[in-house]
């Protein structure tokens, strides 16, 4: 118990870092991922190519490497960023590739018949997108998107190696300092992650059930 009392401030700080890193990176990933998905389904070849290239690159690169490029590579083109900002960028840019795929699969999961029926009653492209395709895509996209975002929370742990004192960094620090309590340290950190991932999974489940369309 004493261990928790002693280290509570550090653990709380670390937990809040993980949380804020997750929230900011998640927002970035959602926005960028949606834009990329729009690019990927657009008829404009370079945009499609760009988005495909982006997705393939980020999907096939370890997040740690992405971190390297953001933190130490960007300065090579004269854009130095702070470490927290850099971590948000790294996690956000990386996750955007997966968000893009989730959103795209959501759009593709809308049965073609729905869009055709919309066109057949005379809706224009924009109208059929707004009235028929997107509302349905959003519903299918909730579960995979939720999973991507939960996976992202776990991925923020890599920021520990890049000057962000989040939960995993605190695990490293405390286990160096409290060799004997290492199991407690581990339990505290695991609990910290679960405090984010489990409720998130629950919320995703709820939203999923709420927006589910009867088919």
């Amino acid at each position, binding site marked *: 118990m004493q261990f928790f009392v002693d280290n509570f401030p550090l653990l709380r700080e670390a937990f809040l870092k993980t949380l804020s890193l997750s929230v900011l990176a998640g927002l970035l990933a959602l926005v960028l991922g949606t834009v990329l998905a729009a690019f990927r389904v657009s008829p404009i070849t370079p945009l499609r190519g760009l988005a495909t290239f982006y997705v393939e690159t980020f999907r096939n690169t370890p997040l740690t490497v992405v971190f390297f490029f953001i*933190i*130490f590579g960007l*300065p090579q083109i004269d854009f*130095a960023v*702070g*470490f927290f900002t850099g971590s948000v960028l790294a996690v956000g840019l990386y996750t955007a590739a997966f968000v893009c795929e989730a959103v795209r699969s959501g759009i593709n999961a809308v049965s073609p018949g729905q869009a055709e029926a919309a066109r057949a009653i005379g809706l224009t492209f924009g109208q059929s997108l707004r009235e028929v395709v997107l509302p349905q895509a959003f519903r299918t996209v909730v579960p995979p998107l939720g999973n991507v975002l939960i996976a992202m929370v776990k991925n923020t742990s890599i920021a*520990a*190696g*890049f*000057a962000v*004192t989040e939960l995993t*960094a605190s695990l*490293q*620090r405390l*286990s*160096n*300092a409290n*060799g004997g309590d290492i199991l407690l340290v581990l339990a505290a950190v695991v609990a910290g992650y679960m405090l984010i991932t489990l409720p998130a999974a629950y919320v995703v489940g709820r939203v999923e059930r709420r927006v589910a369309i009867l088919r």
Partner: protein
Amino acid sequence: GCSSDAGNQAEDAADNSAAVETDAEFEAGTTMAELNEAGAITIGTKYDQPGFGLLDPSGTPEGFDVEIGKIIAAKLGIPEDGITFVETVSANREPFIQNGQADIVVATYTINDKRKEVVDFAGPYYEAGQDIMVAAGNPLGIAGPEDLAGKNVCSVEGSTPAENIRTNYPEATLTLFDVYSKCADALTNGQVDAVTTDNVILTGLVAGNPEGFELVGNPFTEEPYGIGLAKGDQEFRDFINDTLEESFEDGSWADAWDATAGAISGTEAPEPPAVDRY
């Protein structure tokens, strides 16, 4: 067309090794006898400390710590190919000794009382001190740790220097990576104002980029590097201490320095420290 500075230098690299004691004799039952009998020893060292313990591209560890390890092995009558180096990081040096995963640990291992509770130390074989590295020309005029207040200073998560700054100079902003090479990059890029750790490590970093970095040269702690071994093995500890003192005497200690840390930093071997037989 495939030549690079790195390749050219590798070609000139020299080779040195301590002479193996072929007829070493030890009292039966001692650790020395066991190791001598087995003809093998496992030495824990760091793989990411320039000048002290680092893997070369072929995967062979090199550095001052490694050479010290070799001197001890040689004294035990163990040839170089009988030595197994394992990587010990800061967090697992004590467990490795306690669990017998390493016979000795030579890993920029600062002797302190807390660690003495679980392991024993031979040595010290080197006296380092925490120092500060800044950008060349020292634009912020940092002369010592007091000047770090309000500055962004880089070190490694979980290390003693970081802990020291955190407790004694709380006004400094700490940026903590997992290795010093990242700190050096961050300093180059202007992402941090200074890097702090043991001077020997900083010397190595400055050597690589003399136009970019400079050492403040004002060590503000004492970091005696010891050799970690199982607690209570007094005979073994005495043996290592003897070996160290012998190497101080016969110049092999200085040779080891010149071939490793000295070669990188271009500094002469210092006075050897006094062994502490506590």
